[in-house]
């Protein structure tokens, strides 16, 4: 696929397309060109009208202002929120949204989020380290001893899916199935809304509904049963709330971390000096992970404009969407010294990879753990590897950016 349903982009300042492969393939050049042309907020009529602010200040201001910028649609798809609700009247509208709490606004948001926070606090997440190490080592064991591997297909894409599946209580044997669905939901935002795609959405819906029903009948010790038994404002969560949150945990926990691990390994395959520094000094990995999160932040979120207004010189209309490119904020020279340089020992690093404000990624502690362990194990087992240059690296499409294949030549095994 080279174009979305909207066709080729004519001008990135006035007609951008965040779902086009060209966007994620050339993302840093596109932002630099826009900023050099004096365009801090790009616009497109595609997807019903979307704005793209590029500076740290603008991204922060929007993230901190949920009354003017609603979280109802975290992913900018072809249907506007009002159109999507017409298609699926049972879906939750504002302020809860389809995938609470990421799609929820205050004051509902705080209560829905508080339910989940204890399950993702550092002290609950840290003990997962051993499990993640085992997953990573097993994936490498399964690669055999071939000289060329695909680290995305054989390694990065499996790690978060296996962890999330255990947390939510999904059978590990179905991991490929729901990773495929997640990829479709997030990667296909610009694809034709064909009957085949709609059937896939229905299948995912039915699968998760059955999963929840099975847990109502037979409670287990996992997040699904926890949500079913949770209360908000003195009442059990609605079935749609439980469904939306489980869908969120799966969608938000898989593509994102897969992309973060993949971009980090891609950097290490392309930068032998950094790779050697981390092989020789594994205690520096955690700091390097923060720099990879800054430089290759996978996730761009989105907001919806709640009313017609002027915002920093542009006229926004009610129900316009606004992308929140945290990765672009992370490359703002007013916030970071030499932002284009990847410095794995950067000491001052207030990166926004996990967002800013009340919607800070609830899984950030888990994502960090998975990234750290995945890189530690990979470097330990493969102290020397490089990109196999005969093959092209392809990047995902949509608001989560990461490499979808990583052809590596393994030079040394330990």
């Amino acid at each position, binding site marked *: 696929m080279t174009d979305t349903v909207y066709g080729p982009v004519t001008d990135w300042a006035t007609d951008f397309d965040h779902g086009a492969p060209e966007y994620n393939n050339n993302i840093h050049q596109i932002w630099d060109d826009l900023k050099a042309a004096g365009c801090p907020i790009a616009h497109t009529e595609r997807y019903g009208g979307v704005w793209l602010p590029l500076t740290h200040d603008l991204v922060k201001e929007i993230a901190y202002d949920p009354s003017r910028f609603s979280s109802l649609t975290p992913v900018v798809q072809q249907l506007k929120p009002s159109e999507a609700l017409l298609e699926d009247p049972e879906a939750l509208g504002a302020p809860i949204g389809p995938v609470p709490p990421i799609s929820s606004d205050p004051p509902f948001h705080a209560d829905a989020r508080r339910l989940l926070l*204890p399950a993702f*606090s*550092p002290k609950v997440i840290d003990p997962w380290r051993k499990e993640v190490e085992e997953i990573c080592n097993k994936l490498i064991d399964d690669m055999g001893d071939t000289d060329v591997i695909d680290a995305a297909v054989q390694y990065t894409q499996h790690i978060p899916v296996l962890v999330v599946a255990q947390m939510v209580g999904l059978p590990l044997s179905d991991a490929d199935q729901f990773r495929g669905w997640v990829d479709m939901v997030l990667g296909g935002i610009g694809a034709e809304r064909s009957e085949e795609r709609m059937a896939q959405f229905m299948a995912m819906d039915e699968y998760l509904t059955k999963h929840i029903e099975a847990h109502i009948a037979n409670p287990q010790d996992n997040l699904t049963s926890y949500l079913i038994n949770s209360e908000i404002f003195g009442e059990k969560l609605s079935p749609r709330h439980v469904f939306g949150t489980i869908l969120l945990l799966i969608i938000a926990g898989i593509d994102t971390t897969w992309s973060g691990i993949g971009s980090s390994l891609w950097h290490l395959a392309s930068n032998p000096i950094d790779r050697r520094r981390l092989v020789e000094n594994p205690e520096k990995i955690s700091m390097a992970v923060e720099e990879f999160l800054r430089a290759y932040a996978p996730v761009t979120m989105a907001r919806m404009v709640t009313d017609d207004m002027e915002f920093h010189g542009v006229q926004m209309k009610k129900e316009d969407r606004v992308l929140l490119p945290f990765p672009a904020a992370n490359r703002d020279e007013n916030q970071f010294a030499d932002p284009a340089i990847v410095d794995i020992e950067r000491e001052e690093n207030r990166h926004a990879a996990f967002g*800013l404000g009340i919607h*800070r990624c609830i899984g950030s*502690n888990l994502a*960090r753990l998975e990234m750290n362990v995945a890189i530690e194990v990979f470097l330990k087992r493969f102290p020397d590897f490089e990109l196999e240059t005969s093959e092209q690296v392809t990047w995902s499409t949509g608001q989560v950016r990461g490499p979808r294949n990583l052809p590596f030549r393994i030079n040394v095994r330990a």
Partner: protein
Amino acid sequence: MRVHVDSSKCQGHNRCYALAPELFDVDDLGNAFELNDGVVPAGLEDKARLAVANCPEFAITIED
């Protein structure tokens, strides 16, 4: 030297606790607070500054 976490700004990024667990802790919701009334023991000044320099929400301040 003393450190202070502004709880109205903290969003639970957990950078301070990861970088300087001698100076900060987190509650069950993942929100950070300073230990020992924020007093930074001698020798940990650099860690305090590192925590400040890595808080995405600019929630931590230092008083000399």
